[in-house]
């Protein structure tokens, strides 16, 4: 027994590590299995999107926004398009608004499915990942039909959407809704959500109290997991979200404390049901008409001024602050990437003295970060 060493050890996790969800590095000070302290290092994917945006036109920025939160590109495109529209003082055509809502919600489901699948893998359950990808594939197929792309769509443009939606695709979306809800979500719940091992790995782990969540600027499912019902789709409606009926799920400490990993996970599962509800309503109401203002595809020249526009991304509030000097290129673009704020809480969560190395993996997974957006 004398030979067992008990001193602290510095452990480097990442930048290439399957559980860090991207190129993310954490330096962990451990005492045996316990984590004493962590230090997050980001920036490995930094390509200074904001500088690039100053050198291209408003229309050319759209593909760059795809590559920030690359599992939820539609909402990134939407945030950019609406921010520019706000500067221009215009609104997209009615039909485009409906299409935007549908693709944004489908993309939200696809993104939550990825979060669901990879979170299971982080905890040690590999099977749910395959189920999640089986269904995510169906959404990607719809998007492929719609705009030829599976991941980086560049679909939502300033003044509308790039391709009109056909009746065939609308039928596909309807089929997907009927397939997915409620059967598949029930299947996920049976498979993972209420699994005893899963609950004991995630309940009471990484608890983010309400005040801490707000203080760190957490938004999206992470904030709602802590019991704060804040959702821009309801609170500051954009697009046409105010026409639809849906609820905002929030964590309530069902399996442990409010704001633990299980709550954050479950908010995502419940949001998928709500997204399907929105898509179904949009399918019923979609009008005919223009899908795109073609003039705006060649030249966008907003008047001098600035705008800050936020939309509810799959990971939280995605904001664009654009300063225009009246030319064809933005003078300054600043992005609020939700993952950037969400991951900043990690160091605080691991400082509790009760966090084990495996818990830290559970916490990172529950925050659902995309490094493309953290580093921009």
């Amino acid at each position: 027994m004398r030979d067992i060493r008990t001193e602290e050890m510095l452990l480097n996790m990442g930048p290439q590590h399957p559980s860090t969800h991207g190129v993310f590095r954490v330096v962990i000070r451990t005492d045996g299995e316990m984590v004493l302290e962590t230090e997050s290092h980001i920036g490995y994917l930094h390509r200074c999107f904001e500088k690039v945006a100053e050198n291209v036109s408003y229309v050319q920025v759209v593909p760059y926004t795809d590559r920030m939160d690359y599992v939820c590109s539609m909402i990134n495109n939407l945030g950019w398009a609406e921010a520019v529209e706000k500067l221009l003082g215009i609104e997209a055509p009615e039909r485009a608004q409906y299409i935007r809502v549908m693709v944004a919600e489908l993309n939200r489901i696809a993104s939550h499915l990825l979060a669901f699948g990879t979170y299971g893998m982080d905890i040690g359950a590999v099977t749910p990942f395959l189920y999640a990808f089986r269904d995510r594939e169906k959404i990607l197929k719809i998007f492929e039909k719609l705009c030829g792309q599976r991941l980086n769509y560049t679909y939502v443009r300033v003044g509308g959407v790039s391709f009109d939606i056909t009746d065939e695709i609308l039928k596909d979306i309807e089929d997907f809704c009927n397939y997915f809800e409620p059967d598949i979500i029930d299947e996920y719940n049976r498979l993972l959500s209420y699994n005893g091992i899963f609950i004991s790995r995630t309940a009471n782990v990484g608890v983010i109290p309400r005040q801490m969540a707000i203080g760190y600027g957490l938004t999206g499912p992470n904030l709602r997991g802590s019991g704060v019902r804040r959702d821009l789709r309801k609170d500051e409606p954009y697009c046409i979200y105010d026409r639809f009926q849906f609820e905002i799920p929030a964590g309530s400490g069902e399996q442990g404390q409010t704001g633990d990993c299980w709550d954050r996970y479950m908010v995502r599962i419940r949001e998928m049901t709500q997204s399907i509800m929105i898509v179904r309503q949009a399918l019923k109401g979609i009008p005919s008409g223009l899908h795109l203002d073609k003039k705006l595809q060649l030249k966008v020249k907003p008047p001098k001024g600035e705008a800050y526009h936020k939309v509810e991304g799959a990971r939280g509030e995605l904001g664009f602050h654009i300063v225009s000097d009246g030319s064809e290129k933005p003078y300054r673009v600043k992005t609020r990437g939700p993952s950037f704020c969400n991951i900043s809480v990690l160091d605080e969560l691991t400082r509790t003295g009760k966090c084990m190395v495996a818990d830290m993996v559970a916490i990172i997974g529950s925050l659902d970060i995309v490094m493309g957006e953290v580093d921009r």
Partner: protein
Amino acid sequence: MAEAEKSGAAGAAAGKAAAPKGPGALSRRIAKGKADAAKLFPILKEKFGAAILEEQPQVVEPFVVIDPEILVEFAAFCRDDARLQFDLLSLISTVDYPPKDAERGTIQVIYFLDSTAHRHRLMFKVKLPRDNPRVPSVENLWRAADWHEREAFDLMGVIFEGHHNLVRILCAEDWEGHALRKDYVIPETYHGIKNVIY
């Protein structure tokens, strides 16, 4: 502007089929921002008087410009006053204006606040001299400011006084210069890696 009018007409033509009534969501958001400004700016003006250097309640994104001297006091008031309760710091943005610009060599640091209780928002700016941009840190008021300030330091070179760990966050620690400055020159090489500029 002419383009905006034209496209507005096109939008109206398309709308005939669906017959939307009233202003769209974006104009309602802009109106909400102006209403917030009309409600909040008098409170701020009453409290801080001449330290509020400029107010713009009627632009797309209403804002006030404050004296950097009162920043921490102002921020604390915004967070703690019962009428304001700005508990969520959404973003800290920075804009660089070179000397020949109309803003005459200033760096603006722009704070965006949200209130989860009152659901209103506020944007305020401080204007700093470009050759020595220093401003007090607000990380003790909002933890979110920690990383936002580090990013502003990294990419724009703004010094946040009193920040506990003001080091680069996105660029490598030995990176030189601040990339978002308008006069930044892209280095030709980095540790022998050639920089290809297309």
